[in-house]
């Protein structure tokens, strides 16, 4: 099981802040996003693929090739705007 979190604008596009994916065959973020595309809005998927979007695995920034594992927590992070 992979736990997926959406923040800020991504959460609004997803219509939810969390999502669970039960597919242990997914190897990396790229494959996870393809999986999410089956059920989540196309507009969200497009935004996740934007070059300004960030991804985290287990609270660490990761790349599009970031490896998944059992019970990973994946965060989809729009461009940050703190401070």
């Amino acid at each position, binding site marked *: 099981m992979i736990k997926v979190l959406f923040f*800020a604008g991504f959460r609004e596009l997803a219509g939810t802040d969390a999502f669970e994916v039960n597919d242990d065959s997914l190897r990396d973020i790229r494959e996870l996003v393809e999986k999410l595309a089956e059920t989540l809005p196309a507009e969200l998927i497009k935004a996740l693929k934007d070059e300004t979007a960030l991804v985290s695995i287990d609270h660490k920034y990761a790349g599009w090739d970031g490896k998944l594992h059992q019970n990973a927590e994946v965060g989809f992070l729009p461009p940050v705007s*703190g*401070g």
Partner: protein
Amino acid sequence: MVFSKKVWVGESDFDVGEEYSKLLESSPHSGAVVFFTGLVRDLYPTNVNDEMVSYLELEHYPEMTERLCEEILDEANQRFPFDGATVLHRVGKLAAGEQIVMVAISSRHRENAFQAAQFVMDYLKTRATFWKKEVGSKGAEWLGVKDKDRQAAERWGELND
């Protein structure tokens, strides 16, 4: 260099005078303190059609933010050694004029305090997992990294990850 570190993220407001005193207590040999506070401005001319902003909504990724803030402080301390640092960042609904963020650095000499405070602010803006939504009378908009903030962060070169 060993330094005293305080990082806090939450909804309540903070008192600048009190934080200044606490920072000084934690670093009694410092001769220079640089403080930065960021507040909600009432007008954002570059966004949402120059309109007045009613309030901001700030959210974060709690499991990431405090650690990222501490990493940014550690990196700043490697580059510009200092004695003490405080980072406070509010989340939730914040009206015009309210305080959002405070970064304070105490050090022996002023140059490092100024440099470290600027470094921390630049990286907070571009690396820490906070998101800000401007809500005005004509609509709401999630802000992204501003070009000038990205440029400000780039001047420091790469982070030693």
